């Protein structure tokens, strides 16, 4: 599972989970549910949304809300909408980035539309949700002091082998 791989290798040697890896003690579900408690003593953090599309992909792809303001630990839903403006079915694949960089380890996506190929028929429009939360551990990270805004960007690319279609 991706989660186990990411927990062991992490980024540049740093574990993905900011706090100690207690992955053996409780089930992963319990670990995550424990993080899903909104920290009401924290100010809300603004998460704004941007979208881009590779030049090779004839899709329109936009966020459906300018921003959401979330508490750490509070799950939130956001939407993007994609339209295939071409006359052919196209398969796209999205990746994302989070800025500023120090937020990235705390940006936890429960479910979204990234990494898997998404096929849109010619002319089709479809809504793409992202369900996420900011890990409350960010409140213990000195690098996160003063971070009030986060930008989530998704970029859609054409799936490489789709050229023949």
């Amino acid at each position, binding site marked *: 599972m991706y989660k186990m791989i990411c927990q062991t290798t992490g*980024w540049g040697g740093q574990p993905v989970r900011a706090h100690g890896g207690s992955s053996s003690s409780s089930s992963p579900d319990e670990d995550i549910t424990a993080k*899903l408690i909104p920290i009401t003593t924290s100010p809300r953090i603004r998460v704004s949304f941007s979208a881009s599309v590779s030049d090779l992909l004839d899709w329109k792809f936009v966020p459906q*809300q300018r921003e959401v303001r979330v508490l750490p630990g509070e799950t939130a839903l956001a939407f993007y909408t994609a339209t295939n403006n071409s006359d052919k079915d196209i398969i796209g694949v999205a990746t994302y980035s989070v800025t500023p960089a*120090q937020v990235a380890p705390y940006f936890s996506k429960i479910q979204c539309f990234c990494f898997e190929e998404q096929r*849109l028929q010619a002319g089709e429009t479809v809504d*793409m949700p992202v369900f996420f939360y900011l890990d409350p551990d960010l409140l213990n990270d000195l690098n996160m002091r003063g971070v009030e805004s986060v930008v989530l960007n998704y970029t859609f690319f054409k799936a490489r082998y789709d050229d023949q279609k």
Partner: protein
Amino acid sequence: MSTFGSPGALPNTKPTPPQRGSFPLDHDGECKDVMMSYLSCIKKVKGVNQDECRQLAKSYLGCRMDHNLMAKDDFKNLGFKEDKTPSQAGANTNGVKGELQW
């Protein structure tokens, strides 16, 4: 790779896959109405992710579950408090059930 030696070196932001994978696309727009309600709510409150809109988010995810567009799960595992639906108009407040004092 040497850094400046600061304890909190900026991590490389390698994207990670989502915990529960990818949402199937709602090609037929089965949950579009709930989505539109949610988006109107968010616009109205200028993005503040509080109860009113979160209830709609919960409904949207519930819609997806009902239409096989999302694996069914307890809402508390998705960060939503369980609703203890309050009883109607104080019916149970005194615990004397079944006794109608006219």
